[in-house]
């Protein structure tokens, strides 16, 4: 869930058409037209990624007069399915998976159950990945994978490259090799499993 309160605005004079912004926008809201970046205002989620990386400082963030609430209605899907999907991805449904927007696993699961098929669509619908733009790609990929979906990274984009290892997948020989160096793999599996299986505090359908 996110309240979008700003929008990216391109200064066409300054834009040199390098495509950086198009390659990193987490919701694919930027397209190049006549070698200039053009923002789709309806899609922009105000994350400022483009503004922060444009090498020519051609993008400014502008405050929206009317902020837009972006949110997937979790109660619109059977909560048993939401719970099942989250736990298969080894998340508690109430676990926060995006710290900036306080988006919980259940909302991303609900977005997937309602038809979202890629991280870009999920970000567009829930706002996840539009705060810091850094920390929450893996939970999104894990939830998609648990739903049997294998998304392809946007062609030519730098939005994301792939799912990476989870602690449950660390090979035994690696654990053994580094057993004395303070990584506590098995102990961390225990705590993550306990969290994933803990009862929820407030079912979204109650």
């Amino acid at each position: 869930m996110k309240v979008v309160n700003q929008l990216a605005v391109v200064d066409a004079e300054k834009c040199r058409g390098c495509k950086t912004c198009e390659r990193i926008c987490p919701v694919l809201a930027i397209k190049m037209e006549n070698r200039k970046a053009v923002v789709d205002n309806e899609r922009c989620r105000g994350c400022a990624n483009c503004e922060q990386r444009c090498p020519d400082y051609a993008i400014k963030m502008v405050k929206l007069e009317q902020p837009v609430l972006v949110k997937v209605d979790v109660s619109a899907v059977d909560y048993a399915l939401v719970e099942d999907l989250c736990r298969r991805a080894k998340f508690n449904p109430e676990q926060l998976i995006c710290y900036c927007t306080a988006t919980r696993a259940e909302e991303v699961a609900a977005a997937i159950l309602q038809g979202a098929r890629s991280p870009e669509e999920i970000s567009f619908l829930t706002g996840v990945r539009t705060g810091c733009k850094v920390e929450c790609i893996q939970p999104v990929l894990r939830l998609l994978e648990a739903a049997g979906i294998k998304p392809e990274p946007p062609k030519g984009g730098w939005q994301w490259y792939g799912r990476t290892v989870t602690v449950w997948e660390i090979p035994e020989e690696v654990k053994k090799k580094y057993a004395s160096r303070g990584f506590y793999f098995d102990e961390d599996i225990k705590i993550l499993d306990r969290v994933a299986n803990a009862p929820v505090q407030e079912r979204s359908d109650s």
Partner: protein
Amino acid sequence: MRPPITPLAPRPSQYGIDPSLVKTRAADLPGMTSVMLKELFPDLPEVIFPCEEGVAAIRKATEESLKNVDMSMIRPEHSVNILAAHHGFTLLGGEPYAEMLKTIKDVIEARTGCKNIRLRAGVGLRFRETEEYIKRYGLDQHFNGKAIGVAPVDQGIPIETEVGTLYGIKKIYDADWIVHAHNSDVREVHFHRQVDRAVKPFGMAYARIETRSTYHQNLGPRAANFTARAIFDSPFVQSKFAFASFLTVAPNGIINVDADNDLYALNDRITQSGLRYYGKIMTLFGEIDECIAVLDFPCPVVYVFAAGVIYANFAGANTDLYDLDTALPAYTWYTESFYGKRGKPLLDDIPRVNSAIKMCVHNYAWTGYPSAFFSEHIPTVVVGQEQADHFNMDPQNLTYMKHAMVAEDLKAAMEFAYKVTGTDKVVIFDGAMGGINVSEPLAEFLLKKAPEVSKRVDEELLPKWLRQRGVIL
């Protein structure tokens, strides 16, 4: 009682309010004093900075320590990337780190004849932060225009590791050789737990979002630290790694510069000094029974520091952050993510935020790091509407002000804090060098508690902490 130490002036930055809006510094308030860290812990090391000589002492120490490093792999026709990270620029004004970077370049050039030496400076979550520092410290000039900031959303490069593919930032690795230029300041001990501290940037400031998300979401609070080791040990990174050079830091200043071709040897040395010196301050902070915390430093909320300890760690000082048997500190991202919809942890044994912090007065701190957890769980008063508005426009802090109050000025904020909390103990997170700015009652409290803490760390805690990390004294 000693007068307060003059804190670092506010800095112009896109991540903070205009310095002219910071009207009063907390250290200038009535009743404030300072305690030198050596007074608290006389066994803290002697420092080379701050000193009268200024950054010349850092240049000398860097040159001295690089004498022991093999640079023969670097040929005149090669390219070298000196890898830096934002954090170093927040230490003691930033000049010491900038000077070490400049010196490394000069020494490589003089020793090897290589001229194609670039600076690649990684960031946390403020993608233009190191760009600002590169200009501020004249690094662009010193590196002949070859100094850039890199961010985790920039083009990536796959790195094959023992645990599968992870991803680095392409521009970090686009040279024949890389030199890892960092520091041993403890900073985010809630994340790294002083495990492989020296290696961490390979999984963080030099890494792409996929890797950083692995650290913070896929592996768990302690296993996370394996991310950096996996990348550093990969054949790809090993084929490029030349050496590392670190500012070695204690809570009271910079101890020295430590350079080595063997990063793990350097890592063991800083693990020891980190646990020994920061462990004492951290443990002492855990003893504080009640206080008002004032944030007053040009850094995001979590990173403002006092006595070398960041506010994020003070929020978790009720847990022993170094004890690896404790899975979750009271504040770390895993802990934050485990709070359910009712605003309490999903498991009963997850520790709550340090209840000694009765109130936080946010006089001056930056955006650019998700900080809503703090205002949600610690009563917070933000000074000045401009600062509140600034937070409301940060995509990472859209709900910070939802839980915080706004005071017109620092005086009003403090009056409110004193009245509501009933405590007269105040700790100021303003990065004061060599000491700590506090209210008089807290100064007395710390001086009284320190000897017992020192003994406990030396005799009980330090041996346990070292054992847990496989570091033999």
